[in-house]
């Protein structure tokens, strides 16, 4: 396989709750234009386009074709990817496969979400429609008031079971979730492309937000964001000609397991906090990248954390620390931008969640750190290697991308 590098990134000028001034293709083209401006490339330089966003969230089923002119795909190969929360990184992986295989030299990955035009809850319900119909016919009370298999609280319901189990097995407390949310909202204040920014955020302030479903509070939960992200990938040969700086892809991996949500009809046998896919995919990615000890060799991590406990949980799953250690690193200040294990300097998904972009933004934010171009939210230590994590699907699908400042040898 050929070496592949990230040679350009484009974001919409803002990531906010409602972009009423543009429609979907117009918003997407803002990020596409930004990528061209940032790289000096033109549409003629792009061989193929990979497109990603959530299915059904905006009620638009073929956005990559509707927006064909805006993503400059006329007369070119184009493919849409939708894998839930991991969509952005799955699209990135598809772009990587294109270039690594030699099928294309330069690929543009385009992702977006415009939550304000749709309904995330309706979109999420679409994921479990078959199970829900069966449960209804078996007498389930979907309001969650009584009966076996009772569910309640929307997507926060399943997540709360995960957070609760994680706290029990790690020894962390709800105060550590509060502190993590606060840390990332403070980081977000330094990122011009973040949504919820609070330079004064503290654990105490987060702790004052209402409990939705213990141990998850309102302050632990991501917003719904409008925004688009573009990432341009190139082969080693083309990158040398086209870019001054490149963040090199050292490895990619992904893994799924059984659905760990309200999977009543087929029986759930997996602890929602066990998350084997994160363990398996990260170990595979380390092996492919030639990384022996991630604790020493990975300088920076971006975790997909729709909910604040997931930063701590996934740091343990991907082997950046031992089980039960993440909250101790947090207490010691090591997870801050100045720490030894800086994570989510961007503010994470808990601060900004235009879902289709969110897993790609983990990669682009790692790329900015590796290239030293993160500006005000550049971490203090030198970043030679960085890991981007994506989480989604029926809670059980994980994507991993490892970037480096030098191309992989051999």
């Amino acid at each position, binding site marked *: 396989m050929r070496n592949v590098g990230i040679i350009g990134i484009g974001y919409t000028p803002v990531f906010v709750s409602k972009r009423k001034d543009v429609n979907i293709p117009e918003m997407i083209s803002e990020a596409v234009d930004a990528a061209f401006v940032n790289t000096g490339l033109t549409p003629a330089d792009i061989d193929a386009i990979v497109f990603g966003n959530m299915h059904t969230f905006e009620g638009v089923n073929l956005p990559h074709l509707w927006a064909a002119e805006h993503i400059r795909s006329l007369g070119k190969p184009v493919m849409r990817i939708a894998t839930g929360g991991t969509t952005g990184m799955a699209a990135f992986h598809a772009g990587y496969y294109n270039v690594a295989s030699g099928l294309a030299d330069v690929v543009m990955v385009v992702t977006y979400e415009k939550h304000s035009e749709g309904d995330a809850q309706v979109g999420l319900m679409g994921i479990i*429609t*078959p199970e829900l*119909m*069966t*449960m209804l*016919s*078996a*007498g*389930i*009370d*979907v*309001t*969650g*008031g*009584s*009966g*076996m*298999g*009772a*569910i*309640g*609280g*929307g997507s926060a*319901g399943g997540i*709360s*079971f*995960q957070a*609760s*189990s994680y706290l*029990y097995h790690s020894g962390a407390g709800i105060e550590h979730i509060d502190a993590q949310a606060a840390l990332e909202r403070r980081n977000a204040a330094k990122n011009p492309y973040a949504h919820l920014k609070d330079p004064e955020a503290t654990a105490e302030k987060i702790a004052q937000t*209402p*409990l*939705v*479903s*213990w*141990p*998850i509070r309102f302050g632990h939960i991501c917003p719904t964001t409008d925004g688009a992200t573009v990432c341009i990938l190139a082969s080693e040969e083309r990158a040398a000609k086209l870019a001054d700086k490149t963040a090199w892809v050292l490895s990619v991996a992904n893994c799924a397991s*059984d659905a760990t949500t*309200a999977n*009543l*009809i*087929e*029986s*759930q*046998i997996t*602890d*929602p*906090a066990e998350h084997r896919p994160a363990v398996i995919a990260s170990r595979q990615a380390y092996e492919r990248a030639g990384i022996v000890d991630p604790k020493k060799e990975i300088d920076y991590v971006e975790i997909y954390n729709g909910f604040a406990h997931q930063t701590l949980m996934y740091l343990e799953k991907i082997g950046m620390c031992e089980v039960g250690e993440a909250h101790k690193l947090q207490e010691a200040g090591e997870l801050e931008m100045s720490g030894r294990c800086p994570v989510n300097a961007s503010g994470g998904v808990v601060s900004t969640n235009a879902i289709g972009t969110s897993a790609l933004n983990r990669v682009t934010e790692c790329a900015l750190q590796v290239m030293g171009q993160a500006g005000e939210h550049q971490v203090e230590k030198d970043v030679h290697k960085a890991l981007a994590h994506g989480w989604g699907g029926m809670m059980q699908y994980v994507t991993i991308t490892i970037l480096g400042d030098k191309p992989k040898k051999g």
Partner: protein
Amino acid sequence: MMEETREVQGTWDLSTLKFRIEGVGLRRMLDGMKEGKLIGTKCHKCGTVYLPGPFNCRKCHIAINEPAEVSDHGEIMTFTIGYADVRGNPLEEPRVAPVVKLDGCDSWIMGVLQGVKPEDVHVGMRVKVQWAENLTGSLQDMAYYVPE
């Protein structure tokens, strides 16, 4: 919201979404519940017991169809305390919702726990099923969990 949205009529036929699943595992469970019993499905190769039973063993990837009775006592594996209903309206009383591993069963099943203060609930706590007064072969027959 009304000034921003417009309604369009349409239908989806959802009736076909359930036929396969209803065939074996869930049907067996619901029929057993009419007699106050919990009948799962056991993998004849690895011995894993599922409630309700799926068509295939998740571990061995082979078709399974051996009935196995499961206890109505078990252990809390994880739990949450709900403060709002599915529409986001605050509940009058917080609702404890555990995920329970019943004795003799390998899969976990959700429900509601009554008869205990939210602050006293913990992982590893022993609970049992409180059956409904009239058993009809519905998931509502397992009314809620109570401490053992």
